[in-house]
């Protein structure tokens, strides 16, 4: 009798789970608004364990949350009342960040008229995601040009950073008959919980114009950014810098020496994660003359040194790496495609990237898929991955066996 009840309970739980996440075949994305039907989601955990996610569907940004680690999501709340054309690709997605008092911050890139143009948009909620303030534009030059590839970060002290790639200097150069290579890296800071942003600060001239940047913590007030830059002779390797709220920086430093001389858009940006020892884990792709494939390196700001440079995967189809550190473990995740299946691979290091485990496949699909994104909460690591018309949010670490020992 008891066994029978257990079976029934299991069946009910399984049925409830299946109903909560409809399969692709049952989902009618013409009528349904959901993270499954939407495009290019981003997700972040609040300190209370609630998972907040943003995505784009049609001409709207939406926010939804999950209290069971991505199994089911709340009814999405529309962020922008007025429709906008919004960039939704692996390199340019809506971003979400949280303040210390439950504020929800969002940024995205609006497509504006003409080719390769856009505005950096920002909105926020102060009532736990029930309502969002009217979005506003953060770039302040009033030019119809490229302000795109936003990155959003909130410091422990509550400062909101948005960094992006900006072509205002190219426009100005053209007006005076000069040429200007690539974009520039600009950023702005809000010191009033998103009510407004201060000046637009220029960090660097001549960034690559079509790759996502990466942003990571730097102490209580600052932020660190990593991006693909155009060095001399059109070499599209990486640069790294620290941002501060008053716009004062020490310039930038070269972070990779791949020697990729190419007059092309790689559409393939890096990732950056803060390490507890004060250094930064970097993950990137290059097809350079000196380094080809997916790479890991650990950057040290004080002396500009790069430690533990490792070639991770030089196979064709290896792409879009992500890196994270938690509880003394470093995780490196990337995507592979072998002509038939896409796999998400993971590596683990217990010595800050000096040595790595053998790669392990943690997710797979034979459908079209977004970039993999790592999301962490306390000492748990999750994979956020949109695959065709379904959103996957899966625990990567600790694995189930290890979890038993932790609990």
């Amino acid at each position: 009798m008891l066994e029978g009840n257990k079976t029934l309970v299991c069946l009910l739980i399984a049925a409830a789970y299946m109903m909560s996440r409809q399969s692709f075949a049952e989902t009618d994305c013409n009528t349904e608004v959901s993270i499954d039907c939407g495009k290019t989601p981003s997700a972040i955990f609040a300190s209370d364990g609630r998972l907040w996610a943003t995505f784009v569907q049609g001409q709207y940004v939406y926010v939804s949350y999950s209290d069971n680690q991505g199994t089911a999501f709340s009814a999405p709340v529309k962020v922008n009342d007025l429709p906008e054309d919004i960039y939704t690709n692996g390199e340019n997605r809506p971003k979400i960040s949280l303040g210390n008092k439950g504020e929800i911050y969002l940024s995205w890139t609006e497509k504006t008229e003409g080719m390769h143009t856009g505005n950096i948009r920002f909105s926020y909620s102060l009532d736990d995601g029930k309502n969002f303030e009217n979005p506003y534009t953060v770039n302040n030059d009033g030019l119809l040009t490229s302000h795109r590839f936003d990155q959003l970060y909130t410091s422990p002290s509550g400062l909101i950073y948005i960094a992006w790639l900006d072509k205002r200097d190219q426009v100005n150069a053209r007006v005076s008959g000069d040429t200007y290579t690539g974009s520039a890296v600009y950023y702005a800071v809000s010191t009033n919980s998103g009510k407004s942003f201060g000046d637009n600060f220029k960090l660097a001239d001549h960034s690559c114009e079509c790759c996502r940047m990466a942003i990571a913590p730097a102490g209580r007030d600052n932020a660190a950014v990593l991006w693909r830059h155009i060095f001399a002779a059109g070499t599209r390797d990486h640069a790294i810098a620290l941002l501060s709220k008053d716009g004062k920086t020490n310039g930038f430093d070269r972070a990779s020496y791949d020697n990729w001389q190419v007059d092309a858009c790689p559409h393939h940006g890096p990732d950056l994660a803060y390490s507890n020892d004060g250094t930064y884990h970097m993950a990137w792709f290059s097809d350079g003359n000196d380094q080809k494939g997916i790479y890991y390196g650990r950057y040290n700001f004080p002396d500009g040194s790069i430690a533990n440079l490792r070639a991770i995967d030089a196979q064709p189809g290896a792409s879009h790496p992500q890196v994270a550190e938690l509880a003394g473990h470093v995780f490196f995740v990337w995507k592979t495609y072998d002509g038939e299946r896409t796999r998400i691979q993971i590596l683990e290091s217990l010595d800050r990237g000096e040595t790595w485990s053998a790669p392990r496949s943690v997710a797979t699909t034979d459908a079209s898929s977004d970039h993999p994104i790592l999301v962490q909460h306390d000492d748990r690591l999750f994979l956020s991955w949109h695959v065709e018309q379904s959103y996957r949010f899966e625990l990567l670490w600790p694995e189930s066996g290890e979890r038993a020992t932790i609990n």
Partner: protein
Amino acid sequence: MLYHRWIPLLLVLLSVQVSAEFKPFQADSLKEIQERYQGQAFLLTLWSLECSPCLRELDMLSRWVEKYPGQNIVLISTDDPSVADKAWQLIKKYKLAKLDSWIFSDQFTERLRYNIDPNWHGELPRSYFYSSNHERHGHSGALSEQMLKSWAGQLNATGL
């Protein structure tokens, strides 16, 4: 009677689905292209609306085609078919509408890319110079007129 009012709208909607000017590029389309140019040299160029060096390249190709019409040049847009109209406007702007033009027509773009060349990572523009026996070499980045001249020169030198 009322239904008749919807027919023109339906026709418009249907015509938006498929752009008459682009051929849909799918998993087996490269084979079709190679068969079409069997025994002939050709240039295959991949481009996208989202890539500014691609526009410089299309501009250069525009001038090249004007100077040397009748060359085998195949263009493939890696954009989503939903922006086919916008992409075609650009093709027309650069006076390249007479070239063989395709657009990626499978959401699974990694598969399409891999079928073209596993060693191509999606950077744009990307070109392949095919010889008449279809040996090819790839190039990432905007082509220059000098590169096309050198390619055309090689073809002439080998009597192809």
